């Protein structure tokens, strides 16, 4: 007993003295910035830098409480249902759209910037991304009527990272032409060798383009229309594709795909360009050759952006955080760290990311950086190279050629069809019930019942038998 009391007192003492606790209780809320971001989605050394930078700018202390999620919906649930008071979060575009519709967002507050003479870098975001944001589907009965010109989505959301969905594949086992098309999913050669990202929206939005490619090419319909039209037929079409692909699929990965690929346990991984870029570098180190390709039928060009939920307690710091991340050098560092491509479209980024020896073939990234050419001077050698956004020596995984962008779609919020999608997804994913199993269950149940019945009947028969004998005895 004494021991236990001792323990508890120690425990409580510790509790009241933990840095964690002091964070929680001692510090007032407006010196805390609660950042909620995807896992592995930030150069963590930036956190301290932001804290010092914020001090410089505003003269106020702030402590960043950084936590991560790996499922959009999970994060949204916590905010919408759990009312968690995150100050700044980084959801995907369709969630941003939903949060807008449901009035879960508040404007990014840039008013202080001028006062603290802090440059506003929010404009560094590539215009093409801003446009994509603005495209988010209008809907009249929403709290936020997005057609209302006075409302710019970019007031509520600032892009962070972007990417495409495609195939990451191991060149030792897979020929490039084998993965030109999404139909690679059906190739028996890859039995149990394909991992698919456990993200039904992305998978849907790319595979629907495979399902409808004839109509799309013949111009009967548009990619974006099909992608955002979650009719039962469309969902069914995608489901059929996946069912057909089932034997090849070895698993549905939340995050472990890259790991399995670098370990050579899988040959193909339907995943995001960012993961791909990261995995390619990782694999190179252990001498495993991976490549990334966007199949011809089309892809989805996705964005994650920073937003400030209405339950946020420290809007000011949140706004500064977003602004901070929009600096070109910060963007580059994040790209190097995470492998994803920042939406910052400044010449500095273009210059920083292009490299002739690493990427001899060029990509047309003018859609992203605008149509610009400028000389770049190498510090050591001092010789000048011309950088041309139309023919830039960039990593095609990160900055796909314009044609890829032309056949890409923007994902829209599909909350109303959420359940239908989930159902389709689990049809494909989790339906392992087969006849073998069913018969087995039936047999077991039957056996159990038999035993029970047998037991009961035996008792009953015995009882009756005894009754009879009792009678006999009485009669004797």
């Amino acid at each position: 007993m004494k021991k236990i009391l001792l323990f508890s007192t120690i425990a409580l003492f510790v509790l009241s003295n933990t840095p964690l606790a002091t964070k929680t209780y001692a510090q007032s809320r407006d010196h805390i910035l609660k950042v909620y971001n995807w896992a592995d989605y930030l150069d963590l050394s930036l956190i301290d830098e932001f804290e010092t930078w914020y001090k410089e700018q505003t003269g106020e202390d702030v402590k960043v409480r950084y936590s991560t999620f790996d499922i959009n919906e999970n994060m949204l649930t916590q905010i919408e249902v759990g009312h968690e008071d995150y100050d700044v979060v980084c959801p995907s575009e369709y969630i941003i759209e939903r949060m807008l519709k449901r009035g879960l967002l508040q404007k990014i507050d840039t008013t202080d910037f001028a006062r603290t003479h802090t440059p506003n870098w929010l404009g560094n975001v590539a215009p093409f991304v801003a446009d994509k944001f603005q495209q988010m589907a209008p809907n009249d009965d929403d709290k936020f009527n997005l057609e209302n010109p006075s409302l710019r989505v970019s007031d509520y959301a600032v892009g962070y990272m972007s990417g495409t969905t495609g195939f990451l594949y191991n060149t030792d086992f897979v020929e490039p032409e084998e993965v030109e098309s999404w139909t690679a999913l059906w190739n028996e050669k890859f039995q149990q060798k394909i991992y698919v990202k456990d993200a039904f929206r992305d998978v849907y939005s790319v595979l629907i383009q495979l399902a409808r490619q004839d109509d799309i090419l013949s111009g009967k319909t548009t990619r974006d229309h099909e992608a955002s039209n979650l009719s039962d037929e469309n969902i069914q079409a995608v489901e059929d594709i996946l069912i057909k692909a089932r034997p090849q699929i070895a698993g549905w990965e939340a995050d472990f795909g890259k790991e399995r690929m670098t370990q050579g346990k899988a040959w193909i991984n339907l995943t995001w360009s960012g993961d791909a870029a990261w995995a390619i570098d990782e694999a190179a180190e252990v001498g495993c050759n991976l490549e990334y390709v966007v199949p011809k039928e089309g892809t989805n060009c996705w964005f994650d952006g920073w937003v400030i939920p209405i339950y946020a307690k420290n809007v000011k710091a949140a706004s500064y955080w977003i602004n901070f991340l929009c600096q070109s050098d910060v963007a580059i560092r994040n790209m190097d760290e995470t492998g994803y491509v920042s939406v910052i479209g400044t010449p500095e980024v273009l210059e920083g990311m292009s490299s002739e020896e690493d990427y001899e073939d060029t990509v047309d990234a003018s859609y992203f950086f605008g149509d610009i050419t400028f000389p770049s001077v190498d510090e050591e050698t001092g010789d000048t190279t011309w950088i041309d956004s139309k023919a830039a020596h960039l990593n095609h995984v990160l900055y796909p050629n314009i044609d890829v962008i032309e056949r890409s779609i923007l994902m829209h919020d599909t909350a109303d069809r959420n359940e239908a999608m989930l159902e389709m997804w689990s049809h494909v994913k989790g339906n392992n019930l087969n006849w073998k199993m069913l018969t087995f269950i039936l047999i077991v149940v039957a056996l159990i019942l038999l035993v029970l019945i047998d037991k009961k009947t035996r008792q009953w028969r015995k009882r009756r038998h005894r009754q009879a004998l009792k009678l006999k005895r009485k009669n004797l």
Partner: protein
Amino acid sequence: MDKSDYIIQVEHVTKRFDGGKVVLNDVSLNIKRGEFVTLLGPSGCGKTTLLRIIAGFTQPTEGKVLLSGKDITTLPPYQRPVNTVFQRYALFPHLNVYDNVAFGLKLQKVSEDEIDKRVMSALRIVGMNEYEERNVNALSGGQQQRVAIARAIVNRPQVLLLDEPLSALDHKLRVDMQLELKQMHRDLGITFIFVTHDQEEALSMSDTIVVMNDSVIQQIGTPTDIYNEPANPFVADFIGESNILNGIMKRDFVVNFMDKDFPCVDKGFEADAPIDVVIRPEDVVMHKDPKDGQWTGRVTSCIFKGIHYEMLVQTPDGYEIQVQDYTAYPAGTEVGMSVAPENLHVMPCQSLYNAIDATVIDATHVFMLGAAFETKLHTLPKGTHVKVAVDFDKVDLLDDPADGTAEGQIRNILYKGNHYFIDVKCSNGANIQVDTNDVWEDWDMIGISIKPEDIRIIN
């Protein structure tokens, strides 16, 4: 007697447990067919082990067990035509009363009707019909007891073994069960071997009583023999109340104890042979007038025992005699007492002194009773095996085992009228007897010390 009359013959059975502890020491026993035999003795005397050997749960270390002439020593229990009633019944909790009783018969593949007939009759014998459907856990101790008996007798065993079956029942119930068991034995006509530590139980039920102590049989006989002619002080003391006194056999038909001569019916001892005299309290006749009677004394206590009074009488020369009489003599009254010659039970003493095996260590020490004792100077060479004689009253018992030269445990205490006669088991297994006036308890651990001058070495 013709061997075929014996159903169970236990021949020179010795049981030694792994620890080397001897629980049965060369026990031999013949049990007649149809007898009601009781194994009687204090706890730890080995009676239960003997029963388990007969049942087959335990294998004897030496000797063998015969069942109607056939050697069954190695036969597993389930092949022996004997059944046991266990101390705590051991009824199967997953079966109801009926199935518990039918268990054995089912195994013998007896027909349903036959089973039912026999089960019901067995239940009727123990008065448990009507309970057949009951769950055994829902029964009282007595009822469980009856079911256990029914379960055993239903198989018509040649021998029924009962391992203290009544010990768990309260007194009233026990007495009833005793009568019923006796009745059952008569009706069934099979051999009962009954283990108990309760002498009344033994006396009231058995044809033959086997008194056991210290893993050997002390006496075998009918209850009356055992009671009236106890073979030794232990039996006399263990069975019923008794006054046990040291005495000397003057000559045939004359015994001397309490420094007085008494006429008796015993003869054949050599003159002045030391003996123990046993007088049952109810055999002492009391006289109002101290002059009549063979000796006198003052009543020190008088307790009413229902039918009779139990009194303690102090004789002038310091003996305390236990007396039972139908008339009360209040404490303080002077009385005279006499005992009829035929009621004087004379039994020869095993010995007058302790004769102990010892080994010479050096000129002034011998090793005995598991320790080295100092002796008077002697000339025997080292290592010679000798007998050492120590008088009963020359052994000192000490509270703390550590204080004594040797250690021992008190096994048996006899009150010899004016002193206690104590049996001590020493750490090395040897026994010594001690006369003392100190009061000890059974199982006390004590220290033993003997003065050097009291150790007489004899060859």
